[in-house]
């Protein structure tokens, strides 16, 4: 069934978009990923203008994340204090990202910058997670007998002004999550992603947050930051396509609920391994894409 997208100015098959939303929603519910890192590239591949793809993906992530977050809230899986700190950093990061986006766009290097950023981030995080999960699943043995890991990363423990985050089981400086939120917000505007794929591992491995609240809290931050990003895009680039976002949402909000229920039944280490494989696959695909001769040497941009 073809549907015309009024802002994007193209016709798409509605079922393809709903199915794409469904897959992304499943990921969100299972591992706390916004899934934007899959949505935006696939939308662009489908012929939707990049600005519209990025802006509408942000809108969709808001809905998917609230759906997932509400599910986690019922299981007391959200640390509101930590979430608030992440959000403040995230909103500042989102606005900064908007400025950077425009600078890169003017110089014509936005595509390359986005692809390079993706490759570096995804490779690093994917490898880290795959190793951790493999150790936990007894697939590989750690090379040395592991030292008892320090409760906190020494760099983070050195930050001043400690707060208590009861639900996360942490006593750390709010500066650490503030910076983390900033990075997440920056990535939301720059890459059209929720930023969950960097914030979630960082919360686990750098902050040492209690794993029951990691995903829910990350989703809480993503809800607010992507909502702000949608507004920024709606008023500046005017590239938010509400029909596209609605189609993606129909698939993804349902996918997210299914994902959350599925996540309760599966070993978390398996989930992490699954996530690591997805992240690495996307990273290798993008890295290869940078080196291969692209199908189009020329590209047109309206002035």
């Amino acid at each position: 069934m073809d549907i015309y997208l009024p802002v994007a100015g193209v016709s798409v098959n509605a079922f393809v978009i709903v199915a794409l939303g469904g897959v992304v929603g499943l990921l969100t519910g299972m591992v706390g990923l916004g899934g934007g890192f899959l949505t935006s590239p696939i939308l662009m591949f489908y012929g939707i203008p990049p600005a519209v793809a990025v802006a509408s993906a942000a809108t969709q992530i808001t809905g998917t994340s609230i759906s997932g977050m509400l599910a986690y809230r019922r299981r007391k899986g959200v640390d509101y204090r930590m979430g608030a700190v992440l959000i403040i950093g995230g909103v500042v990061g989102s606005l900064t990202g908007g400025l950077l986006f425009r600078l890169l766009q003017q110089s014509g290097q936005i595509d390359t910058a986005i692809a390079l950023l993706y490759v570096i981030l995804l490779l690093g995080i994917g490898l880290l997670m795959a190793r951790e999960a493999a150790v936990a699943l007894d697939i590989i043995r750690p090379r040395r007998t592991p030292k008892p890991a320090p409760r906190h990363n020494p760099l983070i423990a050195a930050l001043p002004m400690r707060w208590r985050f009861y639900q996360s089981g942490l006593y750390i400086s709010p500066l650490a999550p503030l910076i983390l939120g900033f990075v997440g917000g920056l990535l939301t505007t720059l890459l059209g992603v929720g930023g969950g794929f960097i914030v979630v591992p960082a919360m686990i491995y750098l902050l040492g947050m209690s794993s029951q609240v990691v995903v829910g809290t990350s989703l809480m931050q993503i809800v607010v930051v992507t909502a702000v990003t949608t507004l920024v895009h709606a008023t500046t680039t005017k590239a938010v396509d509400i029909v596209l976002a609605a189609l993606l949402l129909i698939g993804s909000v349902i996918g997210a609920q299914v994902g959350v229920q599925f996540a309760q039944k599966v070993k978390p280490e398996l989930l992490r391994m699954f996530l690591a494989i997805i992240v690495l696959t996307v990273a290798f695909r993008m890295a290869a894409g940078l080196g291969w001769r692209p199908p189009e040497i020329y590209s047109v941009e309206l002035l």
Partner: protein
Amino acid sequence: MRRLRAGLSLLFVPFLIGAAKPQLVPDVSQREIQIQYSFAGAELLLFGAILYPGGRIPKEPADIAVVVRGPVEPIVVREKRKVAGIWMNADSQRFRSAPAFYSVASSRPLSELVDERTSAIYELGLHNLQLSPGAGIDPDKQRRFEAGLIDLRQRASLYFENPRGVEITDGVLYRAHILIPARVPVGTYTAETFLIQDGRVVAGAPREIRIEKFGFERFVAQAAQRWSLAYGLAAVALSLLLGWAASAIFRRN
């Protein structure tokens, strides 16, 4: 004296032929194309009649070329090159007036109908588009970017050249189908018909065709432009509502 007279009468020859020139009565099937929820492109029919003086069709009948063009836009074309192992945008060229859509159809290949100069004057054919690149640019680079742009848009069906796209029935009635793909921008398009005989061109009056969004699609597109903050808030509200609804429904189960 005689030679002078002969020369003078030769001067009048074009006028005499001009008086016997065939005339063109062109029309278009649609003056408005509405883009609605399942718009997958449209087909325009350009048709009309050739009126020969005295109703006699000459041994070598005239040819017809039709051109449909979209609104012109200023654009930047970027070119990727391999830099340090990575394909990235390395060079760019501005064009101040690239048509968003251009489709030409003719009853015979254009190169058989008109010479280079004439086709340049009437912008007949993809290689005669007046793209207005900036001044003082290396002509080689300009040609390269032009070729890149035309190739890109040809494969998107936005630029199209059909050397046998006009059918002429009994030397009098002609018609041509022009396909408008789904991805065209909205705006005012023009349809022009050219009657070509012995390398000379008689242009018919251009017809305007409006391509517009309609109904719900028009409302959404306008809202995104005019009330952008309210539109953004509506988008956020919609996504929160759908997300919350799914959550509520699944809790029941």
